[in-house]
């Protein structure tokens, strides 16, 4: 299929410094995207503040800005470079948040820059808890009893409606759950809600029923413009709900799902990526399954390459094709390189069991680390 000829210059945003919740897993995808886009004849402008990345090596992009990742600075780069498009899905939550700010403050429109890879409505539908919940209701995928609050009064009201503790508090638009946690009583609830409201750039928190004890799964899903969807990998958290996915021991592929249960997760994941409208590229969908009743609930969906994508890639050995398609999908409409002539999803089941153990940050001195949230 033809390459988009209306785009010549692409700005790519990196993920910035390594912080807890966002490591270097986006360096490779970004580097590959740069290389591939340049091979296709696009001019690539890169911005990232982290010097310890391969992508900021001077030969990776046409021009490399080692500059702070703030909307003001990135707009200056846009003013200077006049890119036609912005690719925000290669730099984790940092890049996505930055792209959203630039879209919302009108900078992209002012300078005639198109978002490619993920459009604003899709990003918002996946990231905004309310929109996400509504979307899930539309397709009949269960979500956790929950409510959104922007003030403490609202938060208390929701807690009252859900009825009983523990409750989970998740701030919107934050990385790795900063400012969130589990509350077992009212006092704790108020404390965590406040810190969640503070941590969220839009002062919004989601309060949900605790799914402690439910089993947690993740599916890595990709979709192309021809509406093919593949499940790249299933990941099972050995620790049940209650430990942040990033802190849990995980196994790929999932080990304890029956075929039927797995099919249900797959079907749901496919419906979700279509409903959210991630046209091209990969997403990560997290599910919780009640071990007693088999009830399934979707927890969240990331419309971008995520921490787990890196893991899934390494576990299945899928990355190259995946990333290459990822950027290609952004600039052309192209089908999956399926070996089958029939147009059906190509499902890769990794033949080997891989196990990833993520371990915690070394607790800082003088600071007994609190029980995990």
């Amino acid at each position, binding site marked *: 299929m033809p390459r988009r000829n209306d785009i010549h210059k692409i700005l790519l945003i990196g993920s910035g410094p*390594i912080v807890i919740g966002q490591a*270097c897993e986006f360096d490779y995808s970004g580097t590959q995207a740069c290389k591939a886009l340049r091979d296709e004849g696009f001019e690539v402008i890169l911005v990232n503040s982290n010097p310890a990345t391969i992508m900021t090596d001077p030969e990776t992009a046409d021009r490399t800005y080692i500059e702070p990742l703030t909307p003001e600075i990135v707009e200056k780069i846009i003013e200077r470079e006049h890119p036609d498009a912005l690719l925000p899905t290669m730099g984790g939550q940092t890049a996505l948040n930055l792209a959203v700010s630039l879209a919302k403050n009108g900078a992209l429109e002012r300078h005639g820059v198109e978002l490619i890879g993920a459009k604003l409505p899709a990003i918002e539908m996946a990231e905004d808890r309310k929109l996400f919940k509504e979307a899930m209701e539309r397709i009949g995928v269960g979500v956790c009893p929950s409510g959104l609050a922007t003030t403490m009064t609202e938060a208390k009201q929701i807690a009252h409606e859900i009825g009983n503790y523990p409750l989970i508090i998740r701030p919107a638009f934050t990385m790795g759950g900063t400012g969130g946690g589990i509350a077992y009583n009212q006092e704790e609830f108020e404390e965590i809600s406040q810190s969640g409201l503070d941590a969220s750039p839009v002062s919004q928190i989601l309060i949900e029923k605790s799914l402690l004890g439910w089993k947690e799964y993740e599916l890595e899903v990709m979709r192309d413009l021809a509406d093919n969807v593949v499940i790249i990998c299933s990941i099972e958290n050995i620790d*049940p709900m209650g430990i942040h996915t990033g802190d849990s021991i995980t196994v790929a592929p999932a080990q304890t799902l029956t075929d039927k249960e797995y099919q249900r997760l797959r079907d749901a994941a496919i419906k979700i990526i279509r409903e959210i409208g991630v046209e091209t590229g990969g997403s990560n969908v997290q599910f919780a399954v009640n071990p007693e009743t088999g009830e399934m609930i979707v927890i969240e969906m990331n419309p971008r390459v995520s921490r787990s994508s890196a893991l899934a890639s390494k576990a*299945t050995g899928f990355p190259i094709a995946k990333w290459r398609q990822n950027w290609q999908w952004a600039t052309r409409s192209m089908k999956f390189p399926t070996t089958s002539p029939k147009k059906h999803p190509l499902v890769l089941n990794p033949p080997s069991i891989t*196990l990833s153990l993520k*371990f915690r940050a070394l607790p800082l001195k003088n600071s007994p680390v609190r029980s995990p949230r």
Partner: protein
Amino acid sequence: MKSVGEAMAIGRTFQESFQKALRSLETGRAGWGCDRSEKLPSLEQIRGGLRIPNPDRIFTVRHAMQMGMTVEEVYELTAIDPWFLDKLAELLETERFLKKTPLKSLNREQLYAVKQQGFSDRQIAYATKTTEDEVRAYRKSLGILPTYKTVDTCAAEFEALTPYYYSTYESEVLELSQGEAAVAKVETEILPSEKRKVMILGGGPNRIGQGIEFDYCCCHASYALRADGFETIMVNSNPETVSTDYDTSDRLYFEPLTKEDVLNILEAEHPEGVIIQFGGQTPLKLAVPLQTYLNQNPDVTTKIWGTSPDSIDTAEDRERFEKILRELEIRQPANGLARSFEEALQVAKRIDYPVVVRPSYVLGGRAMEIVYSDQDLDRYMKFAVLVEPDHPILIDKYLENAIEVDVDAIADADGNVVIGGIMEHIEQAGIHSGDSACSIPTISLSASVLDTIRTWTTKLAKALKVIGLMNIQYAVQGEQVYILEANPRASRTVPFVSKAIGVPLAKMAVRIMSGMTLADLNYTSEVIPKHVSVKEAVLPFAKFPGTDIILGPEMRSTGEVMGIDTDFGKAFAKAELAASQHLPLKGMVFVSMNDRDKVAAVPVVKDLIELGLTVVATSGTRQTLMEHGVESVELVLKLHEGRPHVLDWIKNEQIQLIINTPIGATAQIDDRLIRRTALAYKIPIVTTIAGARATAAAIRSLQSQQLQVKSIQEYM
């Protein structure tokens, strides 16, 4: 989420992958226990540990099972799927079997089965009361070797030729043990090669002090060697890195970085060289075991490339290192060794407080402290460290208000040395270099000081016979230069320096290790750029409610950012901005200093007032400022002095910048609360005088002109 890193392992069974992943974690474990004597907690503690999710829970599960809890009971408490728990219970059964079976009476079939469950040689050694080497020798004598499988990147749809390997113990055992052929037929999937092979050992999981800077160096080593026609073999266990992407190297082994696993690969691949100096502490720990192995097996032609393990050891061995320094007439801070509190007191008396104390057996600044008095020292010796005759405490004179300098240099086998970059730290000596901001080129060092640094660096590189990279840390007090430490290996500053000077240092270094000279590479003189580059550390404090945020000798940062501009102020401002510290251009600065810093703060405060900021201070600091002619400082009450106090000011967003230096090693509660609140309200906070000076310079630059952007290609 609180993890800073992760390890992944690949195997054929859950048990194998699980144990491999555990020994990849660099937490000292050789697998799921069975590697050291364990003190079992009480049943009550275990129940709590199982019920409340926590990172050590997987070992609590082990303790529970050891104490006889059934899979059902553990499931009730943890909600971990019984399938997993069953597999773990099996591991414990195997362990019990091993513990009552002498090594030599394990037959081939049994040992094979044990290896298939992922037990490491070290675990088997512990269980059978033998040594790892004995287990290895016995295992090999039975023909039990790992086979290497490719990760099937094509889902068995068509043949995968990707050289992406993992080890496993295959199950052809039965057939073999019944048949007449005693030689194991190992079905390896390793592709043969005619090229010269080099193995690069990666850095393992990320943790504080061991970040992606080292992975960057490993990747560059691979890129350069591949470009030169070598076949590169990468060994690493960290799924987040670029080095574990299978097209970074010709071959990738997704394996734990332990002696057993690395030697297995070495014996399967027979590389010409092994590179251990790029991956940080993880591969360096393997230097001595690897060299010992090579010495014991003269038929193995593999060599460790670059600086010899002995030289690396010299730099880390206090006595040998001091001997070299004396010969070269390189100055060190006064220091001593103590094996008891009395000895420590004597040393402290001789060299005078403040002193830096640290245990001799840990690296990376852990448990390192600056101590100001006998009383402080007593507390440190009693509570902070374990003092034993075998584990003395190292005591160095703390050079107050000294400037710390980091140097990265490259040396070749002919003894030529080129300085890569001299970095001047913003925070004073005593703050871990990984947490400190730094600048290239230097900003305040005199020509004679720089001259001394260059001369000493060159002399030391030659004396240590460095081939490749070397990093040296100096402290400069006035015009006096002192050496703090030298590490003949890649440092975490290599990517920053490379980008600041426009020379890929890691690539240069690896080519030198492959036998080229600096002259061959046309890299013979130090590059001093015209623009200024500042590196700043990114700290994870926001993730740890309740921790204090002061900087000290123990490293705490997780990542780094870089700011580049035409002058220091702007470059520093950019670095701060990139690290999410938004410096104010106007508004109110709150200053509260400890007694040692009060006078030093005067010029900075004057500067800030000149820049149009209002300054408020606590009584003591304000008193000193007034005594030195700074009149226009409003008083802010401390927490116990009534209200509204400083926290009220912060919470009401009256304060835009905080300069607060800590009191002693343990900051007082007031100070801690101030810093925590500042963090919560996202108010930039500076905890050192030097940092305050740099901040003032940055504000000055920001006021004069808006920040502009420029690509690195344009700077070069």
